């Protein structure tokens, strides 16, 4: 807990420092950054809706970590999940919302699962490290999804590189208009609770933890290496896909090129900050969302460029991975 606080403070002060150094109007920018999420209903709703996506994505990565695996393909998996959902929404015949919504969400989760599980299987079958294969598949998929949105699915009328809107019945209910906060928050809460029960109470969660902690011990106990090389990363892929679907159905209502960008990396940042506890995942998601919203608020108000957001995001990843690297190093020594 103390460690988390130190990391959080480190991240916040680093962000402040970067803003102060890079902004032409430091005072104005920093005030805007810190008050960003609370300036109005819209900002506050954005803050929560961005946090809930991070809860979903981060929870998946936490499970993946507990299973002793690493999934660097989040960007591609979120985008592909969203694209699968989008394609189904646009191409399938019109359905009532209560049928369509679960169907679209399932399409996204299955897509994410299959992409990530492929990396797990490659690891099991050919000893290709999932870190590399997930990253590379993701890279290719991002271009494929870009192509879908800018090519076959593109709405020719629009000025944006975007598709048509999905039918209104398919969208998640607004909770705090005019802000983007939507009923996906309940999905996020369910994911957090279910993952806790899965990991710490279920038979499969036990096996996953044992396999991640010490695979030889797990094999000694008869836990199948194939299943548990595929399951942890597969679950993280499914939840990335879910995050993509929720972003589509709850916030954007249509495909825009690159509309889920960043969610994959931020999911990893959340999981790294949170460590192992699901409660901490909520906290870490709020922290990362706070920074994201703070940055966009600073960008909107002051003369700060878009690139600064990327710089800060990179800095956060460096800080949180430093922590992990230090632990790895201690393990090795």
């Amino acid at each position, binding site marked *: 807990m103390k460690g988390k606080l130190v990391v959080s403070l480190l991240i916040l002060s680093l962000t402040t420092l970067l803003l102060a150094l890079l902004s032409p109007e430091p005072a104005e920018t920093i005030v805007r950054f810190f008050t960003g999420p609370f300036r109005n209903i819209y900002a506050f709703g954005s803050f929560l809706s961005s946090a809930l996506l991070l809860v979903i994505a981060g929870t998946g990565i936490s499970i993946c970590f507990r299973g002793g695996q690493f999934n660097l393909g989040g960007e591609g998996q979120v985008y592909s999940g969203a694209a699968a959902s989008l394609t189904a929404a646009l191409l399938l015949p019109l359905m009532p919302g209560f049928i369509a919504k679960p169907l679209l969400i399932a399409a996204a989760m299955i897509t994410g699962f299959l992409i990530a599980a492929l990396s797990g299987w490659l690891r099991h079958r050919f000893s290709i490290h999932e870190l590399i294969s997930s990253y590379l598949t993701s890279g290719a998929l991002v271009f494929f999804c870009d192509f879908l949105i800018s090519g076959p699915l593109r709405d020719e009328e629009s000025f944006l590189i975007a598709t048509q809107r999905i039918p209104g019945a398919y969208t998640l209910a607004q909770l705090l208009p005019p802000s983007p906060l939507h009923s996906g928050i309940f999905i996020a809460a369910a994911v957090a609770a279910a993952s806790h*029960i899965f990991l710490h*109470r*279920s*038979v*499969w969660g*036990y*096996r996953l*933890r*044992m396999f991640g*902690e*010490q695979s*030889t*011990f*797990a*094999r*000694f*106990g*008869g836990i199948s290496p194939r299943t548990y090389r595929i399951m942890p990363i597969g679950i993280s892929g499914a939840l990335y896909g879910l995050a993509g679907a929720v972003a589509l159905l709850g916030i954007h209502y249509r495909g825009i090129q690159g509309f889920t960008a960043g969610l994959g990396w931020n999911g990893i940042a959340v999981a790294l900050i949170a460590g192992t506890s699901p409660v901490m995942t909520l906290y870490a998601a709020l922290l990362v969302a706070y920074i994201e919203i703070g940055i966009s608020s600073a960008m909107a108000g002051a003369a700060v460029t878009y690139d600064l957001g990327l710089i800060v995001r990179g800095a956060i990843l460096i800080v949180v991975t430093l922590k992990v690297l230090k632990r790895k190093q201690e393990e090795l020594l």
Partner: protein
Amino acid sequence: MISPRSSDVPALSCRNIAKTYESNHVTACRDISIDLHAGEIHCILGENGAGKSTLMRILTGDQRPDRGSVIIQGETASLSSPHDALKRGIGMIHQQSNCIAELTVWENIILGAEELPLVLPVTAQGRTRKAVDRICSTYGLSLPYRKIASKLDSSGIQTAALVSLLLRNVQVLIFDEPHTLFSGTPPPLFTDLAGTFAREGKAVAVVTHNLETAFSIASRITVLRRGASMGTFLPQEIDIKGASRLMMGLPPQFEAAPETRPHRRAPSRQSPVMTLDQVTTEGDPDNPSVLKDVSFSVHPGEILACVGIKEHGLTTLEGLITSFASGRGDPPRLAGGTVQFDGLSCGYPADLEDFRKAGGAYVPSDRLVTGTAVRCSVTDNAMLHVHKNLTGSIPGIIARDKALSYARKLIKDVSIHARPEDVMLSLSGGNIQKLIAARELALNPKLLIACEITWGLDIMTQEFLFSRIEELRSSGTAVLLITSETDIALAHSTRTAMFYRGRLSCIADTSKVTADQIGDVILGGASI
């Protein structure tokens, strides 16, 4: 035992070195003192795990001792790194490659010393090259300088390491399992090189488990066992057999047969639980660890001990019967013969789960990686085999109270001080082993395979574990004890099966054999 040969100050010595690894509670050195004199070849003998490598790492600054001191030329030194040791003239030639695989041999030789920067001016490189050439011609060595280090064979690697130490004018040379031949035309013998170094006044230490090599060159011999020195001897004071007895923990001289041991029941006439019939495993028959034509049965109500040197087939036997390899590799495969356990054909590719379903339980020799997940809780470790039966009213969800009470039961079974939520690593090595044993014994097996179950444990813990195994045996369990500790077999088994170079040399009623007889069989292949 003798005092040092001469009264002069040893080039390198250590006093009362003790070292326990925090990560796994293994005590590698208990209390070792050793002197290396200029001009001597000092062979350090010991089995795997005797503490040789740790001691050498401490002497070369790679590890710090928990207690004790390292003394260089009479002055207590605190070595911070191998580099530090090198600057004081102490260098080690490692068994495995210590060089950077991607660099050339030449780059590896000149790497790592400030006086020889990697980016040398051409003239300095030329000078160094001349010095290296001189060293090579003096000792008859040769090296392919431009070759990439990863392309070298093991003798080439050791030669390169040796040359780079000689270039730095090292006065204490430590060899860890040296290669017989070094690179050169003709290739110089290690024994000749060692003699040359000693005559030049260097102190040479050779760590090995090859007794022939050791006895052919040593001026003095130190035997290590379980992290303690069993004594330092002149070659005329001890012979190969005596040294190997010390390594195995047997008394160096013949002893009278101890008749105080309790007489044990002869094996029951019931049909065997497990039968090995003419078992041969895949691999080169000259390799001592490959099993050759091994046949025996384990009966209900007996403890059959398989004894020998680990590398003489015991490790293979463990892997074969349980179909489990603790490392990355596959378990050993059957090349011929059969392993029958309760109608189940064992051996790769059958698996450990089938073995358990047929009533088998297995205490692995590798307790910290295979037997436990050390960073998990006692409960997590306790419920490995039974977790699927601990579910409550909701399918697939483990009932916490059931899991906790199961862990408490095991803790109580072996009366250790631990709570279910404690992390395994916070327990002592003995308590970890007790808990592993409790977990396996609780399965109430028909057959228990217990491998090196007493390794590193104190007498109290050993006795305790065997009292539990004895209970199980008397209720009809067949116990196969695989151990490299002869005294354990003598004290606790019904019958003893003795292995030598992968063959089962003989099986005898334990009450009818002595430590001496066992020693003769497992060290020299004698028959009883």
